[in-house]
């Protein structure tokens, strides 16, 4: 289990981390969310001692993180990069060896990964000779070559095409199922909602919300009412003046309500607007939960 415990870090006047704490268990796939500049990358770098926090600790399985334990971690930083002129198989084997694998293990693992990625015939190509998409896959393989117990990925989905996103999702799920603790940051919240059960949301260097997505949504003090009419009305967005309109177009209306708002009057009013095709009352989705806590 990875424990991030009350990390504080300032750069000059800028507070990057302000008591950030959360845990990730093995087998867990955790979405690590937060607006730009909220401290996600600083937190991730702390795990690899690329940043030394002013105070607070990072622990793995209850102990301090040493250079040896770190070898069992895999890291895909936001700033992607490998050696452009190095041959693909040699490059993967090199990263395997940096993570403590023996030469034969590393060479075998590199071969397995290239096989799996369908790039076995490109083993002796230089990285720069590969397409952008294939370079991204090699990058992921470089982080996974040693079968890490903890996998940390900073914005793994950025820059991927839809097929690449699917591949990446499959790999992350598979890693977690095989017992690794997996943490990734992303701004694509719908994707996070599909992919994982648990999220941590940080803002201004501290955790503002953490837990299973389903619970976080339910715990919100807001609910959303979706109404769809068979025929559009020009005054639809003014039909419920006492409630906040989230969106309104083409006969559809989304309202934001407090969670204790009685529904019956709304049902009654809706029925008077015309023929109702849909009337649903749901907790906020992850994006809305995110916006609610971050904008507070």
């Amino acid at each position, binding site marked *: 289990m990875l424990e991030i415990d009350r990390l504080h870090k300032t*750069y000059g006047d800028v507070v990057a981390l302000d008591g950030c704490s959360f845990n990730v268990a093995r087998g867990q796939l955790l979405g690590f969310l937060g607006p730009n500049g909220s401290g996600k990358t600083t937190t991730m*770098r702390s795990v*690899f*001692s*690329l*940043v*030394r926090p002013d105070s607070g600790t990072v622990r793995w399985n209850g102990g301090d993180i040493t*250079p*040896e334990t*770190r*070898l069992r*971690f895999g*890291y*895909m*930083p936001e*700033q*992607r*990069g*490998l*050696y*452009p*002129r*190095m041959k693909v198989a040699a490059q993967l084997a*090199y*990263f395997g*060896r*940096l*993570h*403590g694998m023996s030469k034969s293990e590393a060479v075998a693992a590199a071969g397995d990964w290239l096989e799996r990625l369908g790039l076995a015939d490109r083993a002796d190509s230089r990285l720069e000779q590969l397409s952008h998409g294939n370079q991204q896959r090699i990058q992921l393989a*470089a*982080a996974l070559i040693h079968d890490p117990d903890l996998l940390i990925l900073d914005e793994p989905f950025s820059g991927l095409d839809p097929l690449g996103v699917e591949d990446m999702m499959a790999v992350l799920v598979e890693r977690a199922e095989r017992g690794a603790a997996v943490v990734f940051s992303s701004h694509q919240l719908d994707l996070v909602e599909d992919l994982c059960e648990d999220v941590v949301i940080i803002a201004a260097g501290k955790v503002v919300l953490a837990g299973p997505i389903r619970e976080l949504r339910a715990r919100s003090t807001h609910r959303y009412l979706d109404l769809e009419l068979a025929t559009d009305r020009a005054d639809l967005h003014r039909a419920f003046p006492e409630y906040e309109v989230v969106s309104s177009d083409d006969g559809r209306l989304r309202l934001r309500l407090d969670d204790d708002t009685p529904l019956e009057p709304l049902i009654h009013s809706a029925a008077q607007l015309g023929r109702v095709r849909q009337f649903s009352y749901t907790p906020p989705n992850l994006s809305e939960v995110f916006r609610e806590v971050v904008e507070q």
Partner: protein
Amino acid sequence: MSPWRSILLVAARDFRERVTSRAFQLSTGITILFVVALIVVPAIFVDDDLPEWEIGVVGTEPDGFATAVAAASGNAAVINTVGFSTRTEAEAALESNDIDIAIDDAGKILIDNDTSDQMQAAVLTAVATIEIAARADELGIEVTEIADLFTGGYEVESVAPVDEGDNDENRVFAFFVTVVLFMSIVTYGSWILIGVIEEKTNRVVEVVLGTLRPHQLLAGKVLGIGVLGIAQVLAIGIIAMSLLPIQDAFDIPSAAGSVLAWAFVWYILGFGFYAVAYAAAGSLVSRQEEAQNAAFPLTMMLMAAYFIASFSITGENPVLRVASLLPMFAPMTMPLRIAGGDAVPVEIGVSLLLMIATTYALIRFAGRVYAGGLLQGAGRVKWREAFRASDT
């Protein structure tokens, strides 16, 4: 994983990637071709045959005459003798330049205006030697005893401590090594500078630093590129040395064993120090364009060290003495003082210690700056900020 294993992994990668690169192979090939051409081409055109002396002999040629003349000339000439039956014939041949000098059977050495003093002296010595040997033989004196007759049997014996060799010659050798060191640093220093920035420009640095400490990465790069550089210098040096004998005009500087050993030690230390210093300079910048600016102070230091050495080749002076204790100048100045027999052991010890300690401190410093610079983002970093930003 031991720190050394990480360092060696990095070193091996840097070594292998460069040695297999087309650019490296091409530049090594061109350099070797250039060096070979530099040695072989003049040898083809330089006429290094010994001059031939045509010596006329009137009457019977004394036994061993040609050999004696050659010995007397210091084997600087090939001796051909030409027999004449009369002195008049010999004079005519001398006049028409068929011969350079002649001896007759009446105890005369015949010369003309073209006869060199060296030739004249050699012939005179030769006939004297033959005559002395002949007379000594008549008196029953062994040839080996003749030398004693000229010295009274005495020989000079020095009680001064045995000198390891000629100091001037040693200094020339030490300076020669300094020149090689200077050229090695100028060439491979920039390789290291660029190699260190490579990880930042490729943006691979964060992945790599997730597995090892920045100073290990830097030490590995310095080691990998440094060993490659020294191997290249050795390869070129060995090829050059093996070809030099075909060119008589150039003498390989020679030196006493201890001077040679010290020159080698200082070469390695100096190369190591400057390699690490270039790595530290590289750690301050993120883009290749800024590399030369970052290295400018180092280049100046290197030039200063070189000039102090070249102005001190004639002997000890106060500037040399101070410089030989400072790490940035010591590798180019201390070998000169050792070669000249001017450095006392304490000075050598202090200089060595300072050198090694500074090199180690520099690689730790560079490691911190490197990590700090990375996390500060792009652009050139003031080293103080970089240093504070990280404490790995």
